């Protein structure tokens, strides 16, 4: 591929290192691009050729609500994840490295545990007769079980917990790269800790927040297991609706169209992320 052709016409040259990418590329084309194309085809041919599936999805109040729910959940999860992850990432960034590597180990360990197991564990904790509600009621703090599951609260708790590592890891990278002297300088110039945070730390950590935030947001958009188990029927998200259309209604055309819309939105957000943060920074080169 890298043989130079001495033509005056502009020729398309494979970028260096392309050969190494080949196995992965073949795999992706076979098992991702081809099925996605089949999906797209189904969405415009079933039950009959045309765009009626897309029209039905975009014109119906129920589906609109599911789309709205999907973005609402993804937004809430992203914001809460950022709020929880930031202090953790900051502690990790300024901690002695021996201690930090232990904390990192704990964070990574949680990612290695099966997702379904972790979600079921949350069910045991959050349900009406679960550990949290029993404790609260036994302690007399509340006389009724709090509604912690089958609603937005349940989804948020379960998903934030799963998404945290994806937020903490890029944030730590960004925060570590910030020169601590900038904060000291701010303090010397009379800035309060809050001013130093708002005017120095926050702007400098913005690339990390954006990278982690978009990653969490995009992952949340397509989430299935956690919302299905911890959410209620009125919090239904797109992935769950697609499963329902295909498994329960056997409506492959409509399900494919919904899946394709989700894919397009996800890709658009990813493109936005690349533009905002830059591919090099995204891959950890911050």
């Amino acid at each position, binding site marked *: 591929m890298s043989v130079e052709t001495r033509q005056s016409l502009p020729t398309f040259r494979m970028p260096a290192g392309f050969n190494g990418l080949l196995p992965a590329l073949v795999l992706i084309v076979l098992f991702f691009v081809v099925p996605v194309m089949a999906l797209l085809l189904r969405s415009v041919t079933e039950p009959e050729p045309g765009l009626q599936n897309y029209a039905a999805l975009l014109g119906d109040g129920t589906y609109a*609500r599911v789309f709205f729910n999907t973005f609402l959940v993804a937004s809430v999860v992203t914001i809460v994840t950022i709020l929880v992850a930031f202090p953790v990432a900051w502690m990790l960034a300024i901690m002695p490295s021996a201690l930090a590597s232990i904390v990192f180990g704990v964070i990574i360990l949680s990612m290695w545990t099966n997702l379904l197991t972790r979600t079921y564990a949350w069910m045991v904790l959050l349900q009406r007769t679960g550990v949290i509600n029993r404790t609260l009621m036994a302690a007399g703090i509340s006389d009724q079980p709090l509604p912690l599951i089958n609603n937005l609260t349940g989804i948020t708790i379960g998903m934030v917990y799963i998404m945290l590592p994806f937020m903490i890891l890029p944030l730590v990278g960004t925060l570590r790269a910030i020169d601590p002297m900038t904060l000291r300088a701010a303090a010397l110039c009379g800035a309060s800790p809050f001013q130093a945070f708002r005017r120095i730390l926050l702007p400098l950590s913005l690339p990390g927040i954006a990278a982690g935030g978009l990653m969490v947001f995009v992952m949340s958009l397509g989430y299935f297991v956690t919302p299905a188990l911890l959410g*209620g029927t009125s919090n239904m998200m797109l992935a769950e609706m697609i499963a329902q259309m295909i498994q329960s209604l056997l409506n492959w055309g409509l399900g494919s169209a919904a899946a394709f819309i989700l894919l397009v939105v996800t890709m658009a957000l990813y493109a936005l992320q690349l533009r905002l943060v830059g591919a090099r920074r995204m891959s950890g080169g911050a």
Partner: protein
Amino acid sequence: MFDTKKFPGKRTFYKWSAPGVIEIALLADGVPADKLYPLDLERAFKKLDTIKSDIVWWGGGAESQQLIASGEATFGQLWNGRVFALEKDGADVGVSWNQNLTAADVLVVPKGAKNKDAAMKFLAAASSPAGQAKFAEASGYAPINTKAKAEMPADAVKALPDAHVDGQINLDMNYWAEHRDEIATRWYAWQAK
């Protein structure tokens, strides 16, 4: 089921669009059993609206058992075999047979099945009096072979839905087969609200 003052607590119903929940909503709203079909969906969903926040949905038989056994739901509409199994395991549960709904399941051999003869032999064995008697005794579901009961212990026969034909209502599967998609669309739209 629909009186939250008299019977507070969560009630659990089948999550997916299927015969059962819409029927009991209509019955609770005063529709006579012989006037259930065609289903008045508008009226059913209006009735269901009154208890919507008190419903926990079960997506599969095991989940219905887990919800009841853990006390997550106080009561609900369940497949009787699932309650039967809970009782056998010693859970403190019971069945009200008042207005119980029945439906028949079917065994099917698909067209072009590879081992059709063996499958047919299985159907013959499964639907024989002896096969049905064993199935009914183990599951708590009624046998489809009327001769099966003669081969069952008397107390096992008493535990079957057949012992509670008073007020029993047969679900109209033909109606559901015809209106399946229409009901499903409304069902999921209502749930997502």
